[in-house]
């Protein structure tokens, strides 16, 4: 039997006052250095993952005070560049009370475990895409971010390109009429990668690099390039890793999750030679509950919304439309206006200060990542599946539902 909660107005006010009673701490740079903004305006950043993506992101405009990586040379290089401290283990970095936020640019299989730990430690976070290596991880991340009211920015930086926003605003404002079909295209994965066991190089904590992923011998893919992107233990391949971008535009322009159930079917190739074993050459067809058809294939980068009165195609490189006059349209006050951001990192730092929701929020991140997961699962099971996007499950399909989680290697969990 459930009782009515006995929460008085006074208790609520007391709880709110207690929540706001004390500042976090005086930040590490409170005394300040010449030419830097005062500590009250500075956001201190811990970088977790200092490889290719992590280096490109930098500190998103915040002040990097700590750098973490399983590779010794990478963390030490970043620590030396920023004057911060190098950490091998992200848990040590997260325990620092003077760090406001973290930039998570690890291999994909670490994104959610680190993000959940960051939320529990009270840190805001910029998280590289894709999100989790399972739907369960996506849900755990969303739950932790909401539980602690953390600022979460997803690394789908197209949302900070004005033409992408404008294209989605055209669609949401009905300028192409009723949406009937959506074509999503992303770069392909592929076979390859060395599968023969090699010696673990000096300077790599391989066990920590693997973390929650199954143990397999070192074969060189942690070295970088794009090797691990295409290994199923560490990622889903570009059906998620690059697909995250055009799929994110899809959910920014159209509320796929509000139109269930979905019918999902697809084909693809799973490499059997070399280390790569993520799907490539995929061809996924999703029919939403309202009849809108989505086709998701490799071979480029765009999201094309096709409506009854025209179409809009959006890619990182530009926007096209039919009729072309749509591109010169001035949206009015009664049209849909999405969150404006001119700088993805800057939008994140601003949100850390203001506590606003960033342009690439956790709910949309989960929605787009789940499209990758259900596509992957439908291909692997080789049959048409039904997906309920509100309950995040395959109704009545125990076999497909098994694939919503992957046990994490001990001692890791979320």
């Amino acid at each position: 039997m459930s009782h009515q909660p006995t929460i008085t107005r006074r208790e609520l006010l007391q709880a709110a006052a207690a929540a706001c009673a004390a500042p976090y701490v005086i930040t590490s740079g409170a005394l300040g250095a010449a030419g830097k903004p005062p500590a009250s305006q500075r956001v201190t950043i811990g970088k977790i993952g200092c490889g290719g993506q992590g280096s490109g992101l930098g500190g998103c405009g915040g002040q990097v005070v700590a750098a973490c990586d399983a590779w010794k040379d990478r963390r030490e290089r970043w620590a030396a560049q920023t004057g911060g401290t190098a950490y091998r283990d992200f848990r040590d970095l997260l325990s620092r009370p003077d760090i406001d936020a973290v930039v998570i640019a690890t291999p994909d299989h670490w994104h959610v475990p680190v993000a959940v730990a960051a939320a529990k430690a009270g840190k805001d976070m910029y998280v590289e895409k894709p999100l989790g290596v399972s739907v369960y991880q996506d849900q755990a991340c969303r739950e932790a971010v909401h539980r602690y009211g953390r600022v979460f920015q997803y690394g789908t930086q197209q949302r900070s390109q004005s033409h992408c926003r404008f294209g989605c605003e055209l669609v949401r404002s009905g300028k192409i009429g009723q949406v009937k079909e959506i074509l999503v295209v992303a770069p392909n994965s592929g076979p390859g990668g060395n599968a023969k066991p090699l010696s673990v190089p000096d300077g790599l904590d391989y066990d920590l690099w693997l973390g929650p992923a199954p143990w397999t011998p070192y074969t060189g893919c942690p070295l970088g390039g794009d090797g691990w992107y295409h290994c199923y233990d560490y990622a889903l391949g570009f059906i998620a890793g690059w697909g995250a971008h055009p799929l994110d535009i899809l959910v920014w322009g159209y509320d796929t999750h509000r139109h269930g159930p979905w019918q999902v079917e697809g084909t693809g190739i799973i490499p059997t030679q070399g280390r790569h074993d993520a799907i490539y050459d995929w061809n996924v067809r999703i029919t939403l509950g309202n009849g809108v058809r989505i086709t998701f294939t490799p071979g480029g980068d765009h999201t094309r919304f096709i409506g009854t009165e025209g179409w809009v195609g959006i890619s990182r490189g530009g926007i096209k439309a039919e009729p072309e006059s749509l591109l010169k349209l001035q949206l009015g006050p009664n049209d849909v206006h999405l969150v404006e951001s001119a700088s993805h990192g800057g939008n994140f730092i601003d949100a850390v200060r203001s506590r606003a929701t960033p342009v690439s929020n956790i709910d949309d991140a989960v929605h787009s990542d789940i499209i990758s997961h259900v596509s992957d699962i439908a291909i692997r099971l080789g049959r048409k599946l039904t997906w309920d996007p509100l309950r995040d499950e395959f109704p009545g399909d125990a076999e497909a539902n098994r694939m919503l989680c992957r046990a994490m290697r001990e001692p890791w969990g979320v």
Partner: protein
Amino acid sequence: MPRIFQPAMRAAVLTAVVVLAAAAVPAAQQAAGKTAPDKAAVDKAFETLRTFDWGQDRGPLRAIDDAIVATHGDAAARKDLESRLAAVLTGSAPRAAKDFACRRLSLIGTADSVPVLAGLLTDKDLAHMARFALERIPDAAAVEALRAALPKTAGGLRIGCIVSLGVRRDEASVPALAALLAEQDQAVAAAAATALGHIGTPQAAAALGDFLKTAPAGLKPIAADANLACAGRLLAGGKKAEAAAIYKSLSGLDQPKHVRVAAAQGLLAAAAP
């Protein structure tokens, strides 16, 4: 094909083979337009699997994956595949082969596979892949095996079982997990608290409420987080009063600010009509 097969005879034989093959294909496969498993290829794949090791071409094993897909809805065929995969785990096959078998049992395993998988939960090399399968096998026998492994394991292997029980939100494990909150190994106690938070029943809440008061300093943040998670589950289940009581207990100045913020959010949610 032997030369003595004349075209007409060849056509007749092929027709007969097709008819017989179609009769042998279960209805679910026909409906799905699936191809029946290539028995010879599957046999060869299992033969290859006996000695399969890291770095080898996975192509010869592909027939097993194809058979798993093709036998959807065919319980008897699946049972045969399951027993052959489970047999790999009891033999002297390399670790890579057992890894492969566990991954496939995660897709088609039933209660029949649980005993052999349970036997691996104390094996430091294979415990994770055993859980990879057990965590996904819907039958209650799978969680019972994970629970039964708690007193037989220690350290990381025990933590793995605890995490999996939390993922499964196994209510029957609450007493066993609650007992582990007092473990000397703080990593085990922390994992138990987190799992109880995931399970999120009133019984789990009671254990976590006590833990919030008694946890050593190093586990206070874990205790707070597990209580918040538990309150979230209770709230989602409509148990607003129980959830609010937990949020109130986390609203004091003895908690760090982000916990107090979370508790304040929770109290507001619990107060909503």
